[in-house]
């Protein structure tokens, strides 16, 4: 346990709350990128005394993707889609934040009860990871824009990544890279889909795409 790790976990939690309260899409994109960068650095900070090349390599790639490539892709999709920069939530910002506080409470409650752990880092990280997962799922269902749903997916992915950092650090590098490649491809394909949606429909509202049903 060290000071930097503590600070990082607090920042991850604050980033979640900021996404819940932010009204502009580009602010959300930046916050999610910031959160991704923090989580990319996490394995380095958690193992400051036992650094090795593999760890640095993995952290470097992950940080580069989450802090530079994803926001660039999403920003491009946002610009192509024109001037639709408001988040337009189904659930208001105040309510969202209140829900966020509830999620945080629930995450702490569950997180400290998880029957584990030998490492102290994991004990502090588990609630933050769970909170991030909850917020990701909440953003996906409570926001109207298709782009917000991609952001929700990224937050969810961040949370799961943090959980993996806490409990399953021994993933082989190959699998780790495979997962990163998949997430990258997912954001890429979703970006293309958003581009097509904005061209076809002249809007990005996922809830207005509802012709298919039984």
């Amino acid at each position, binding site marked *: 346990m060290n000071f930097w790790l503590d600070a990082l976990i607090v920042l991850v939690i604050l980033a979640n709350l900021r996404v819940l309260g932010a009204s502009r899409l580009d602010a959300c994109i930046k916050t999610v990128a910031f959160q991704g960068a923090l989580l990319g650095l996490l394995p380095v900070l958690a193992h400051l005394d036992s650094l090795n090349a593999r760890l640095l390599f993995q952290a470097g790639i992950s940080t580069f993707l989450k802090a530079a490539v994803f926001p660039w892709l999403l920003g*491009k999709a946002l610009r192509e889609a024109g001037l639709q920069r408001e988040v337009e939530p189904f659930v208001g910002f105040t309510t969202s934040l209140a829900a966020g506080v509830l999620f945080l409470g629930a995450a702490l409650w569950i997180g400290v009860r998880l029957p584990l752990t030998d490492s102290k880092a994991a004990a502090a990280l588990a609630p933050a990871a769970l909170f991030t997962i909850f917020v990701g799922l909440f953003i*996906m269902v409570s926001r109207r824009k298709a782009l917000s749903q991609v952001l929700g*997916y990224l937050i969810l992915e961040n949370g799961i990544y943090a959980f993996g950092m806490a*409990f399953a650090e021994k993933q082989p590098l190959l699998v*780790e890279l495979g997962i990163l490649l*998949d997430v990258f*491809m997912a954001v890429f394909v979703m970006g*293309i889909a958003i581009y097509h949606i904005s061209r*076809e429909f002249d809007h990005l509202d996922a809830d207005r795409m509802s012709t*298919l049903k039984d």
Partner: protein
Amino acid sequence: MTWALLGVPMFCGAVAFFLRPHGPRRFLLVAAALAHAALTLQTWRCLPAPVLLGYLELDAAGRLFMSITSVLFLAAAVYAVGFLKESRHAKESEQEDGFFFDNAPEAAFTGGLLFFLATMTLAALSQHFGLLWVAVEATTLASAPLIHYHRQRSSLEAAWKYLLICSVGIALALLGNFFLAVAARNNPDLLMTAKELVGNARTLDPVWLKAAFLLFLTGYGTKMGLAPLHTWLPDAHSEAPSVVSALLSGALLNCAFLALLRVHAVLSAAGLADFSGGLLMIFGLLSMAVAAAFIVGQADFKRMLAYSSVEHMGILAFGAGLGTAAPAAMLHAVNHSLTKGLLFLTAGNILAASRTKSVHEIRGLLRALPFSGGLWLLGFLAITGSPPFGPFISELWILKGALDARRGLLAGLYLALLAIVFTGMSSAVLKMSQGEPSEKLQAVPKTSLWRLLPPAALAAAVLVLGLWIPRPLREAVQEAAVLLGGR
């Protein structure tokens, strides 16, 4: 061998992406499908050695599911040649400026099909749970753009739903992977491969193992189309070009099923078969019930086929969950894929001739399109479990498994749901087939051989499997069932 199975579709897909002229690209598609099928056939002679520390290894279960994929892909590739020749892309003339590439849509489509094959092969080959997850997620990403080939609003909506729902579902399966790692924390040297985990299943923490299975069931169950997580499936299957629908239904859903069963095998070895098998049975029957409810009175015949896929995934989960019927479920996976491939490809022919997906606007198929109409009727009889076709044998075998396990009540429910689906589909299919050709079916263009031979070949295979099951296949389903947690 293992590398070739992955490399051939991967390489050909990359080439197809940049190949401009239509002729050679279509040839490449069929050639790659043939090469993949030949390599797959070779694995039936002897299984290739594991590569990459045993992360990639073809076992009897993986071979069975890869063979299904390979056969279906070959049929789809031949069909795709006819499909691409006839349906010239609507917007091909007006140069589309893409988000990243300005590729001819057909080149991207062909490349995407081959990448899709590569990812499904990877899913069948993966023994490592992390790699398996990577493969299953990759199948989503490779297939989502294929759904949007016709560039219609509805197909875009379907692709978006598919992409999001499946990505979130599969993200939960990744969490399941981590839970599995936590369950194995008492044994830190354990590799996360199926073989190692099954071998050391008793050392795993049962609470975390159960939690992991719930997450895997949600994640891979979404991808497999188990109710109530099937919502993406009818949209994607009905809006995709029929050749893609056939692959989604016959090959992709099986990949998710295989992934789920690999976890089920670990739980079975840990003595938790009642827990995981019980959940599989519940969700299997629930899927059958939901599908039955939507098949009755369904007005869109491709959606009807999609719900039939939900139903059959339910049958597979039910059979695998029973334990005693696991080999029957394996056989049913083969039968369902071949039959559903036949039906979707035929539906594509009907759609091309009539330009409508509405059941009510089509009458007199047998007169207007004698060959496709005949295949349509035959496929309907096969998929609803009528003798003498393959699905009849496997569905009967699953019923026998249920009775052997003294699950009389569930067996009764299973039979009742099969009967409801039969009635629901028969009223639609018989109305479409008989009578005078309706307005939409006047003066239909001739269907090319490219589009008739693949479904006909699949129909022949379904018929043969109903009369005679070759010995290698019989042994393979038994072996696969043992590997995947059956008794």
